[in-house]
């Protein structure tokens, strides 16, 4: 088991109180597994990704543990986390366009980054060139400034840098949302090939786009309002979802071939609850057509079939 997250709670400090962005999340990621983490804006998916590598100043580790390859990650202690960052846990940030220092040539930027982690750049230079070739970048990009690269090239460069030290866990946070469809496909497939080539052991692919994550993930986790709603192998989640939220979300997706005149899709009425002072019980219940008395109690996230977990009273 490469990653084990147990009852993780990370809240944001605000002037009006604490926002429970991540409120008791438990899951595991197996060796070699590519897990898609899907959800809408504000559901806590990016907070979860950030929590595993770096809490920013507003975030507070309230409860829960994270274990990577059997060792506990000290996520609340930024100093001690430094030993893990880049080497054990790495991230491809959402805005790869602006992730590289604009005042450095890329080669120098990479060398400085490696030195800051106590790694001699010469030792990984051959591997760096091999990986640049794999993603279709010429070695000359190392002599260029980030501004000289196109968006897709920058994205691929950042992917190579992030995974250069073969981290155990790679977090890819909305890495394709700023890209054109053809570039998006190339980037997503590169992530799969990094996994297949064992550059990374396991990957957490965070996205709002279920049809994209369906293309590459082994299993999908759906989040809602700071908690996990459902987790299942990719095909199971897409063909036989059990949580009402997952079902409604899937049926709201327009697909090529579905026309307004023939079949009218519907959205999900209402909006997610405020996480500043969230209601007790199931957080989806105000928008859920199946809600009943029991939903005022929080449903446990339990296995309803092998590898298929759901947090819904109606799913049992």
């Amino acid at each position: 088991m490469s990653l084990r997250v147990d009852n993780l709670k990370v809240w944001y400090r605000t002037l009006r109180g604490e926002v429970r962005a991540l409120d008791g999340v438990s899951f595991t990621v197996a060796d070699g597994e590519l897990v898609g983490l899907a959800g809408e804006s504000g559901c806590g998916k990016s907070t979860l990704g950030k929590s595993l590598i770096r809490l920013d100043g507003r975030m507070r580790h309230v409860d829960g543990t994270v274990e990577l390859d059997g060792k506990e990650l000290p996520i609340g202690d930024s100093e001690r986390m430094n030993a893990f960052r880049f080497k054990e846990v790495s991230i491809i940030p959402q805005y790869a366009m602006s992730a590289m220092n604009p005042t450095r040539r890329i080669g120098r930027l990479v060398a400085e980054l490696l030195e800051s982690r106590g790694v001699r750049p010469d030792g990984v230079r051959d591997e760096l060139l091999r990986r640049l070739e794999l993603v279709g970048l010429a070695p000359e990009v190392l002599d260029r400034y980030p501004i000289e690269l196109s968006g897709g090239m920058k994205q691929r460069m950042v992917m190579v840098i992030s995974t250069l030290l073969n981290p155990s866990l790679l977090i890819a946070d909305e890495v394709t949302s700023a890209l054109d469809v053809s570039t998006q496909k190339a980037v997503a497939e590169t992530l799969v090939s990094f996994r297949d080539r064992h550059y990374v052991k396991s990957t957490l692919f965070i996205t709002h786009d279920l049809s994209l994550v369906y293309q590459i993930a082994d299993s999908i986790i759906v989040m809602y309002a700071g908690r996990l709603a459902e987790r299942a192998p990719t095909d199971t989640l897409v063909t036989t979802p059990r949580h009402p939220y997952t079902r409604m979300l899937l049926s709201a997706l327009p697909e090529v071939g579905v026309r307004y005149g023939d079949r009218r899709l519907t959205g999900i009425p209402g909006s997610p609850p405020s996480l500043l002072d969230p209601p007790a019980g199931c957080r989806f219940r105000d928008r859920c057509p199946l809600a009943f008395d029991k939903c005022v109690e929080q449903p446990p996230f339990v296995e309803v079939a092998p590898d298929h977990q759901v947090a819904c009273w109606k799913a049992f």
Partner: protein
Amino acid sequence: MLTLEGVSKTYRVGTFGGRELVAVRDVDLQVAPGEVIALIGESGSGKSTIGRMVLRLTGVSGGRITFDGVDITGFKGKGLRDYYAKVQGVFQDPFSSYNPIFKAERALELLRQTYFAGLDGRRWRDKVEASLDAVRLDPGQVLGKYPHQLSGGQLQRLLVARALLLDIRLLVADEIISMLDASTRIDVLNLLGDLKARGLGILFITHDLSLGNYISDRAVILRQGEVVEEGPVERVFGQPQHPYTRSLLASVPQLHRRWDRTGRDREPAGEGGG
């Protein structure tokens, strides 16, 4: 209603403006009442430039854009004001379409000064409520609020409501749902479908092919400023003729249909050794 004939747009680029960049080249296009035209392309295809030219936000370098047979490039003063009473645009980022220091309804109030100065308060309020009703917004939930207190979907619908106050005939919708969540973007799409049924013509600009086909009658595929394929949506999506359209369609992530992977099958997780 709206007709583009051989429309081009060139920008001067380079330090001294010595080079020319052709953003749009020789595009023909028509939008009839009650018709939705999807203008589909990747970044740099010129799709937004076309929308901006139709909205007179940028000039035309070549060709003609006419609305009901009248060339729109000559409009000034009152003529332009009358044009905007019939043609309006809504853009991608609802958050930057509002001034954050004013309440969201100011977007509507500004229209009142220009177009409805003679209307008394009561009739204005009725008109606002009718247009909010048309976009399925609850007046009590949006009026009196600041932009940051509203969701992206609410703000975007408020912008459509603003356009509807004017009894417009053509809406230029430039990526209006790209920034919305999946559960709310379909509502905005359905809203456009309802408006189309009421006779509104829509130029639906998008990079997302799966959104382009849901409400549209015809699709126009753009690549580097040129139209590569054009036709009824069923045909363009069902039997794409141009290789570029085919490759675009093959790249769109779809549920229940996986990308063709060349030369490699997917390995199940955990296999293949360490």
